[in-house]
């Protein structure tokens, strides 16, 4: 590779938290800036160099007609397209709208609902264009992002395991909050990557990284229910940041239907 590879960062419906993981990378960001041309990153700089780009990072979900068109153009401009975060890979927390009526939300929130143009659903990028790699998380893990960029630069496979959060708890020597405290925790069915932040603070895993590689939600929620957690609480635990990820969606629908 003679010329430095060109990197672009794009935002769709999202809170910007995943892009912030890149901005907050500090020393690593400076190091990265020395190895790639950051040609489109509006959160960091108003300097924009037109595409095409070698690699595009896409944050956010598709929630408007304009988004649907823009993502196709972004795809055309990026040789390697990576979605970053729960919004881009699963529709995000805003995919809760998929279970409601968009007109009701519009009327409840906006003074002039007729001026709001939006789709009825929030959908992941991969529902609209082919995606080369997905980084999970709400937000993504900075270490995984840097690892992915390093992997692309060095031409190797990224170290992004599909196993459960439990692996990270056990590696840190944390005591399992589900077993020792009876707290319903999504860690056993959630993909690792966060470093087990919530269990380290005595809280359950909320499933920010979406379903693990072979999740068995029916077994886990059934066990928690037999231990006394109401089905409705379990439904809401599963239906959150990654509500529309297929495995989580199927389970929250199943729990809701059988309430």
């Amino acid at each position, binding site marked *: 590779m003679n010329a430095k590879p060109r990197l672009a960062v794009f935002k769709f419906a999202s809170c910007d938290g995943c892009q912030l993981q890149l901005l907050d990378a500090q020393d690593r960001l400076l190091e*990265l800036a020395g190895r790639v041309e950051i040609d489109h990153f509006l959160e960091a700089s108003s300097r924009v160099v037109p595409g095409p780009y070698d690699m595009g990072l896409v944050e956010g979900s598709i929630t408007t007609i304009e988004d649907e068109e823009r993502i196709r153009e972004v795809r055309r401009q990026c040789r390697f397209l990576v979605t970053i975060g729960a919004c881009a890979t699963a529709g995000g927390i805003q995919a809760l709208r998929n279970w409601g009526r968009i007109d009701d939300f519009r009327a409840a929130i906006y003074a002039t609902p007729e001026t709001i143009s939006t789709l009825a659903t929030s959908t992941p990028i991969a529902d609209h264009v082919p995606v080369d790699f997905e980084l999970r998380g709400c937000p993504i893990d900075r270490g995984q992002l*840097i690892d992915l960029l390093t992997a692309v*630069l060095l031409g190797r496979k990224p170290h992004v395991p599909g196993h459960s959060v*439990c692996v990270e708890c056990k590696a840190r020597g944390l*005591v*399992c909050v*589900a*077993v*020792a405290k009876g707290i319903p925790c999504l860690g056993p069915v959630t993909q690792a990557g966060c470093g087990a932040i919530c269990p380290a603070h005595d809280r359950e895993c909320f499933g920010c990284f979406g379903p693990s590689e072979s999740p068995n939600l029916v077994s886990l929620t059934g*066990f928690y229910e037999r231990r006394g957690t109401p089905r409705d609480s379990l439904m809401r635990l599963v239906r959150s940041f990654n509500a529309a990820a297929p495995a989580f969606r199927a389970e929250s629908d199943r729990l809701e239907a059988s309430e």
Partner: protein
Amino acid sequence: MTPPSPGSWHWLDRAGLQLVVDALRRQGHRVIGPQVADGAIVLRDLASVTDLPTGWLDDQDGGSYRLRHDPTAGTFDHVVGPHSLKNFLFPARETVASFARDDGTWTQAPRSAAESPLAVLGVRGCDLAALAVQDRVFLGSGYVDEAYKARRERLFLVAVNCRRAAATCFCHSMGCGPSAGPVFDLALTEIGNRFACEVGSDHGAAVLAAASEAGAVLAACTASEIDAAGAVPRDLGSRMHARQTVNDTPSPRSLDTHGIRDLLMRNLEHPQWDEVASRCLSCTNCTLVCPTCFCSSVQEVADLSGDQVDRERHWASCFSLDHARMHGQSVRSSTASRYRQWLIHKFATWIDQFDTSGCTGCGRCITWCPVGIDVTREIAAIRATDGAAAPETGRGTS
């Protein structure tokens, strides 16, 4: 006073035990001991014997662990928690080598300075047996793990003879407890407010002598006192074999190990594998808390330039898809195949490979399974319907 020597027994009170800890620390040991933290009894650096979990009991069952304070409980009446010697001798993550590239030439960085030797207090029979199993894996197979070896050779073991069993314990079935052995430096049997301390090695004798010089009173145990101390774990073992309720803890589990290798090997297509797979989460907890599971994976972690590379080893589990990934796909794609791989390795092919079972009956895999899958019940279910064959499920070897 009789000077301590291998095979001798001495009384130690709590102050004496502190002097043993102090003596170990003076020798440069990092002293690890059981302590209450985060709702469990964990192993961590021990500052003082007052931090030991005196008066705490652990109620354990499938997928459940709860501490209970009982003023009549001793210092070591809890059993095993989520941690084991494995966490210290074979840590979850370890940099095994580092390399730097300069002008196209690679140089390996020298290994970092030696760690302090470890001393672990409160190690039970099941975990001593697990240590012997890991020794075979890491030291005895012809491929010696140097990092493990360095820690193992300097390890000081203060064992404890159990006088209580949790409902998840089945060491008696596996022949691994509740007596401490075969190898330890010192072994404690708690009687009243003091400990009958058996010396198991020259190093143990030297540490006890050092504690004595620092003021520990080491009355020699009489022959009848030694008999009484020896009876403590033996009586517990008898009650475990009889599956009696021990104090107010439900009766321990048990496992019929008769012909277990052949039982499992002739039931590779038993329908129980699919039944357990409907409950198994593939979350890896059973393998990570298991004191004998030894699988690891190695990856190169480079900086953005690729000029600085660390070779990192981390725990791996046969419940993850990557563990059996080859030529682009996992050869054990179903949960049934992964559970079967784990259980059959642990209880059957381990015997072929290492001439010992991989299970010591510590019960951690039962307690720390988030949905309480119980290996003793799974094996009992297979034994009860020995020879049953699953309808063709397509599970096969995958």
